[in-house]
């Protein structure tokens, strides 16, 4: 016998102001199987939950409908509440009478009518619900961190410090990422390397951390707690077990003039190189595309000759290493926009127009100019530098609507550094708005303006063009309402922060979602900001959205906490609302297989009786460890054999009928 209880929440006045909750409860009392209905001010609060539990006992309820906020908010809360009272958590349905009703209506009778309809739908559905059970999944207590920037380093250290093994996969020769390229950091102006390199050394030496640098993710199989990841370890041509990092090879390599990507192509590196002097691991790699040995059939071999430990091995090849991990932290960072859509600013056309990251290398003491600010074209010290904010950001028309968040602050910092290093130089900043939300940020910006005399001009830059030996920056001062032209020896564009060019491809490999700008999507923008939509995959740093260093570090630690939380359990509880196959109906067409984002569908051979014969045929089967219950397969299935438990056709149709009939 189905005995349904309906609990209508006031949500303070959130619901009660636009919905007559008593009327909704009253109308629910007349619905089939409903034996009890009541209202309460805050159903999610402890007394509210107790009210549900008491009613379950008192009225022998075996199914529950809670009319309250979105199930996104409190479905879990109420499931737990009914479970504690002895009802299977999947025999509870939430009718969303807040987001889908009270918040979108003003007219109380209309809101009340709709709320009653939504409750009727939930009652119709819950009457057809069946108890579902979660399974248990084992956990492989090893974490993979993709990306060895500050986000990856922080996450790896936090996980390793909790006692779990971590592998960092880094594409470049060394960990360090963007932060290693920066000179000073706002708002304290402490040196980026000085605070980063100790952490790099920590990951390099940590017994629980393995660094796979010069490596990339080839493929990801498996599921939460049990990922199987293939890592491509690119051929370095140097045996890391033998190399001491003495530097003989890179100092003596005759190919010296290759552009150094670490220095944003402003400096040079040899064909055998480490990214920068403090590189971790301090083992060089050979850039095979530019090494004489590989280009000219085994000629040169200077590095091999000078290496005191015979670490050079030209015959090394890419290796594919398969490893198992329980959790993955994505920390792939960002790149700055190429600004090809903005030819008027001349990035790439005029050598003295650079991005903020270029400028960092020009101020850095480890940079190509050893910290003396020189303009790229002729090495002259600039006497006037124009900083352009929102370069490529906040421009819906040309592709990026978002704010890159860090630029206001780092441009202020760069202007301060310029004024400190070249006191007679002028710093002009073109801005749309200055955004300094952050501890001590506004003060820092005011210092730039007042103490360092940085000239802030509100307006967009229309054009940058060369004149004699300098550049002219034309724009409009929108505060004065008149056009301005500023002479500049250098123009620094605060180019938009965007995800790495291959972020979307990587997201597809790992099986996580991303937004239209290719930033990885968090599971919930407020309440689950470091989890991806895929179980066991967490996000840290700029791959999820633009952010500065403190935010990145905080998010990385949060992601690490999530990983540690997972690893601290004996087993994982698997999702109960999963897809399942009605084998009798399945025709084995496998249209479900390619649409499954989690690779959860496999063929399975079954035996069937056909008249007097026993026949064998192939049908789909769902791996409950991999399935995340998204339901794509159920939609694709042409014969209706695939169903999503908890959202079956019968249940959905019952809801529709309850609303429409």
């Amino acid at each position: 016998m189905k005995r349904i209880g309906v609990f209508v929440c006031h949500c303070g006045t959130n619901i009660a102001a636009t919905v007559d909750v008593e009327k909704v409860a009253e109308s629910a009392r007349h619905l089939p199987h409903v034996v009890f209905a009541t209202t309460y001010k805050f159903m999610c609060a402890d007394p509210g939950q107790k009210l549900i539990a008491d009613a379950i006992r008192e009225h022998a309820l075996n199914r529950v409908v809670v009319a309250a906020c979105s199930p996104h908010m409190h479905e879990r809360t109420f499931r737990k509440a009914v479970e504690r009272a002895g009802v299977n958590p999947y025999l509870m349905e939430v009718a969303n009478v807040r987001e889908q009703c009270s918040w979108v209506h003003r007219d109380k009778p209309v809101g009340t009518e709709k709320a009653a309809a939504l409750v009727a739908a939930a009652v119709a559905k819950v009457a057809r619900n069946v108890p579902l059970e979660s399974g248990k999944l084992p956990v492989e207590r090893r974490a993979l961190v993709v990306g060895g920037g500050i986000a990856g380093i922080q996450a790896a250290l936090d996980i390793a410090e909790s006692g779990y093994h971590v592998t960092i996969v880094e594409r470049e020769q060394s960990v360090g990422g963007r932060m290693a390229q920066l000179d000073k950091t706002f708002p304290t102006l402490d040196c980026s390397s000085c605070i980063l390199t100790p952490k790099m050394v920590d990951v390099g030496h940590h017994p629980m951390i393995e660094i796979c640098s010069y490596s990339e993710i080839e493929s990801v199989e498996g599921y939460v707690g049990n990922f199987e990841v293939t890592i491509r370890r690119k051929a370095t041509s140097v045996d890391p077990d033998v190399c001491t990092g003495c530097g003989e090879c890179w100092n003596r390599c005759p190919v010296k003039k290759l552009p150094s990507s670490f220095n944003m192509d402003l400096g040079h590196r040899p064909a055998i190189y480490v990214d920068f002097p403090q590189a971790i691991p301090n083992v060089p790699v050979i850039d095979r595309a530019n090494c004489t040995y590989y280009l000219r059939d085994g000629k040169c071999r200077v590095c091999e000759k000078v290496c005191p430990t015979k670490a050079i091995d030209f015959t090394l090849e890419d290796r594919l290493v398969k490893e198992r991990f329980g959790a993955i932290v994505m920390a792939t960072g960002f790149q700055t926009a190429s600004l090809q859509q903005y030819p008027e600013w001349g990035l790439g056309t005029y050598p003295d127009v650079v991005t903020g990251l270029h400028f960092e290398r020009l101020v850095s003491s480890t940079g190509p100019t050893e910290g003396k600010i020189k303009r790229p074209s002729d090495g002259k010290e600039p006497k006037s530098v124009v900083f352009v904010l929102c370069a490529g950001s906040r421009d819906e028309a040309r592709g990026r609507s978002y704010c890159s968040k860090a630029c206001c602050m780092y441009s202020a910092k760069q202007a301060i550094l310029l004024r400190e290093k070249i006191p007679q130089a002028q710093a002009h900043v073109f801005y749309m708005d200055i955004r300094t939300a952050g501890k001590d940020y506004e003060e820092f910006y005011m210092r730039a303006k007042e103490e360092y005399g940085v000239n802030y001009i509100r307006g967009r830059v229309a054009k940058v063009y060369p004149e004699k030996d300098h550049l002219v920056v034309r724009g409009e001062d929108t505060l004065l309402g008149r056009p301005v032209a500023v002479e500049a020896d250098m123009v620094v564009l605060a180019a938009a922060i965007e995800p790495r060019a291959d972020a979307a491809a990587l997201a597809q490999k790992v099986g996580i979602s991303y937004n239209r700008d290719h930033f990885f999507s968090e599971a919930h923008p407020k309440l689950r900001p470091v989890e991806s939509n895929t179980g066991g995959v967490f996000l840290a740093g700029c791959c999820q959205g633009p952010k500065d260093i403190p935010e990145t570090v905080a998010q990385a630690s949060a992601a690490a906490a999530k990983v540690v939380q997972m690893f601290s359990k004996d087993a994982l509880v698997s999702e109960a609302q999963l897809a399942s196959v009605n084998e009798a109906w399945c025709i084995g067409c496998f249209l479900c297989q390619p649409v499954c984002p989690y690779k959860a569908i496999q063929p399975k051979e079954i035996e069937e009786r056909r008249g007097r014969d026993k026949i064998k045929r192939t049908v789909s089967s769902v791996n409950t460890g991999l399935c995340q219950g998204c339901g794509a397969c159920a939609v694709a299935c042409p014969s209706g054999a695939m169903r999503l438990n908890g959202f079956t056709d019968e249940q959905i149709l019952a809801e529709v009928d309850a609303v429409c009939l």
Partner: protein
Amino acid sequence: MSEAIKTAAPVEGEPMPAELKTAEIPTRRGPAPGDPEFLGALRDCCRSLLAEGHVQRIIAYRETPDSLRPEVAFFASPEETGDLVWDLFCNTNICKYLLDYRTFEGRIGVVVKGCDARGVVQLINDMQIPRDKVEIIGICCPGQIDPAKVESAAGEAWVSRVVAGPDSVEIVTEEGTEMRVPLESVLTDRCLSCRKPNPPVADVVFGEDQKGRISDEVFEQIAELERMSSAERDAFWNRHFERCIRCFACRNVCPACSCTKCVFDQQEPDWLAGERNQANQHFFQITRAVHVSGRCTGCEECDRVCPVGIPLRLMNKKLWKDVKDLFDSPLPGTKLGVRSPLVMWDPKDADSFE
């Protein structure tokens, strides 16, 4: 096996369509229908396939007392192939019978026209039968004759037999009178607008490639329907749908319908109620058409078998036109390993909803 015909080796390997390469049509062919040696060669071919154990069953046609209506027949031994026949009255699309052989332990030969062959390929692509289990004996089809058109041309007289020539047919009545009518006047409607009369995939082919008839009549009718107001269109389909007796013949013959439990037969939920009202009639027709869209090979067998003459081809072709315009995919059944764009997911898909 006749010297002129050679079968290609069955394709080895995975039954997954994505893994299959398009089998090339063998260069050596059998004689064309119309050639005096054709039927003998076809029988020889089928006989030796059975005799040599290449196939354990052949699905083809057999003569009946009504010379305008040969029947589908299943040949299990070489001796039986003596009454195998293939003429211009082999209207039935036999590919659907392959479904009865899903679990048959052996290979099956099918004698197919261009339209039937697309059905075979679609069944392979829908993973209902592995490619290497089917021997496709293809015939480049000169067009099939509609027995009803012949009978109406003969008027009151009983037709005893029809002799088809390349451009005209000779109708001989029981009384012995002979009359000659142009071929086009008795061809089936679907053949009059057939663009793909040749089997796209086959192991043996009889006849040289046919050009087909490129009539735009169907698409003109679709354009006309598209120009109608929605009320006019609703009235148009209502007129047709209200005749539907839900015999499900359209579904039963369709090579894209391969579900073991059809949505229309399901009880819980009962998608299609029994009552014959406008909503249910529309629901059945539209659901059927949408269900097969993107997999409909355009064989128009549903249209041919409909006992109440609903122009199903218009619905199917309209849906095909839309799928083609949106996804630029080949006609279903013309290529091995192609799955319907409507059930595939690709990040590069057209997204016209944005």
